[in-house]
């Protein structure tokens, strides 16, 4: 009973925190804050995974999502916001369209969920799906294994890494085509916010 009560409390606390942070994600005017809020949403999700008994997944969530993806996003924000970080508010029409779309999605999805009846799992038969179970399943090449998608995924990641480098690297100068892709002098540049550049500021009225 204690366990169930704690579960209920944690669910609602984490869920509310996730939703609030998610709202902050889509409404923050500073992208960096949005990214930060995203990090908290993902952390809350990791907590929710723990509640669902998926510890390994929670760890992966934090490791990859928070430690990798969010950091990457923050990097991108820093590299691409030469202008000031404030983003204009979207136009009212667009906000309305977005709100209508998302709220109706929520309503419809809620309607579907409310009428959804899941097949009840066999009671008691619940050995923990721990990290080793997931690992076995991932590398199992039987009919229920995921080794093929897993390998495909590794290929995808490799392609993404190479593609990302190919897209984002600067074209090396013609006279030295084999530069280190960022190490040579003049190749690294961080685009600073306008307020941090050396340009003289416009006199304020």
């Amino acid at each position, binding site marked *: *009973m204690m366990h*169930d*009560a704690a579960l*209920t409390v944690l*669910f609602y606390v984490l869920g509310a925190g*996730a*939703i609030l942070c*998610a709202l902050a*994600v889509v409404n923050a005017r500073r*992208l960096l804050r949005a990214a930060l809020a995203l990090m908290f*949403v*993902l952390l809350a*999700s990791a907590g*929710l*995974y723990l509640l*669902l008994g*998926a510890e390994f*997944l929670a760890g*992966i969530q934090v490791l*990859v*999502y928070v430690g*990798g*993806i969010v950091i*990457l*996003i923050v990097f*991108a924000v820093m*590299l*691409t916001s*030469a202008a000031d970080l404030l*983003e204009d508010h*979207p136009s009212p029409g667009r906000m309305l369209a*977005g709100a209508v*779309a*998302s*709220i109706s999605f*929520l309503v419809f*999805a809620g309607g579907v*969920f409310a009428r*959804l009846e*899941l*097949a009840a*799992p*066999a009671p008691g*038969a*619940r*050995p923990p*799906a721990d990290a080793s*179970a*997931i690992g076995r399943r*991932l590398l199992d090449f039987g009919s229920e294994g*995921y080794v093929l998608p897993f390998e495909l995924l590794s290929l*995808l*990641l490799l*392609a*993404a*890494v190479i*593609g990302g480098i*190919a*897209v*984002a690297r600067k074209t090396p100068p013609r006279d030295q085509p084999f530069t280190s892709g960022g190490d040579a002098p003049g190749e690294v540049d961080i685009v600073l916010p306008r307020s941090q550049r050396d340009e003289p500021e416009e006199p304020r009225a």
Partner: protein
Amino acid sequence: MLEFLAAHKPGHVEWLLLSATLFAIGLYGVLTRRNAVGILISVELMLNSAALNFVVFNRFVAPAACDGQITAIFVIAVAAAEVVVGMAIFVALFRHRGTIDVNRMNTMKD
């Protein structure tokens, strides 16, 4: 109090509603953000809620299996790949055009 809380343990509807709410919020962000990175962030939100959905179904439909968790792992990995490529594109785009405002990325229109 404790009994009340224990009796109201979240069932699958609550879990699914939670993930649907997160998804809807992400959808709102995708539709309203002007900055491409902002859109990408919102997409991450949606992906995360989808992964959550998988785990929820895993938990409530077949708790003995771990297929939902594996799918969630795949989702995370795909999201990572997506972000890598997306960010590379945005950085390259920004370098060329000086902006990543999606309103101004409409050259296909003309």
